[in-house]
């Protein structure tokens, strides 16, 4: 049971929550609780291990807060089962804060 390496990127200002680092490599076990590791686990991992404060600017009710779009390999996560998406090795997951300025 090998580990998964997930390439995570924050964009649209979200990187400011992560010391202004846009790109992160995150290692997760390929199984969690006897099931394939899902996107929700990645969100929890980021909340619990990459953040020390302002967690509510990223997570709300066990998912990303309103106003954040999630890309799974450049595809809207709504087309990939959202939280239930089963992560694969070398997936690229991007979290983008939607911008409103003009």
């Amino acid at each position: 049971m090998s580990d998964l390496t997930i390439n995570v990127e924050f964009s649209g200002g979200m990187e400011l929550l992560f010391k202004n680092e846009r790109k992160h490599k995150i290692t997760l076990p390929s199984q969690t609780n006897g099931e394939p590791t899902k996107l929700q686990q990645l969100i929890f991992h980021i909340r619990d291990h990459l953040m020390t404060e302002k967690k509510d600017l990223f997570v709300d009710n066990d998912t990303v807060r309103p106003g954040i779009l999630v890309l799974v390999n450049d595809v809207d996560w709504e087309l990939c089962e959202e939280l239930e998406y089963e992560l694969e090795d070398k997936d690229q997951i991007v979290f983008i804060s939607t911008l409103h300025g003009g």
Partner: protein
Amino acid sequence: ILEKTASLSNTEIKRYGRQLILPKWGKPRAGGLGAPAALYLGAAGIGKLGIVDHDDVDSSNLHRQVIHTEVKEGMNKAVSAKLAIKAINSQCIVQTYPVSMERSNALEIIQDYDLVLDCTDNVATRYMLNDAAVLLGKPLVSGSALRYDGQLAVYNYQGGPCYRCLHPVPPPPETVGRCSDNGVLGAVPGVIGILQALEAIKVITGLHSGEPSFLIFSALSIPMFRTMKLRNKKSNCPACGDNPTITHLIDYVEFCGSEATDKGISQSLL
């Protein structure tokens, strides 16, 4: 596509020899996004362009709102933009609306146009423009910019999603950054504004594929641009779904829990 130029007069043919003639249409706000969008649409030979802006030109805007000049300080921005467009293309009809777009006037203003450009600067107006565009059946070319980042999408077009399909719930007010707080490099909204003009021209001329996508621009990232394949319209969307509940414009400030202008509000970063 280019056959449309066949009906032009000789003066026009000299000018639009390589260009498109387009039906009446429009609606950028003459800000950081609206300035370049309006300039390139007017120059491209759009038949009619409507510009809504209640604001006046201020010298602190000029670095990103390149349609205005120093001598126009204090002039209404929509009027200033009209003068600039007319100077480049005197044959473009430019209708100015020196007012705030509100739920009371939005439908009436928009109904005269074929397409809406969202160049606004706050969440509440973005929901309002979306709902108005859906209610009137107009495509919405949405642009936004902040600091070094920009985003672009075409909503409510050929079975693609509307803004509410993507964002059923408005973001918490404390997460919303504003230009006046967070600053912006002029070229960033410039890039997005011109791309809005381009997407609008593609839609109007039928050159747009209609494939729903979302363009993400980060001036300091590598790569600078990323394209996201977007969901289709959602059948349960309150605006554009099968059983819409948004049948008229609502109170968007209340809906978003924040004020609809960026005046004097000190927002936290992000």
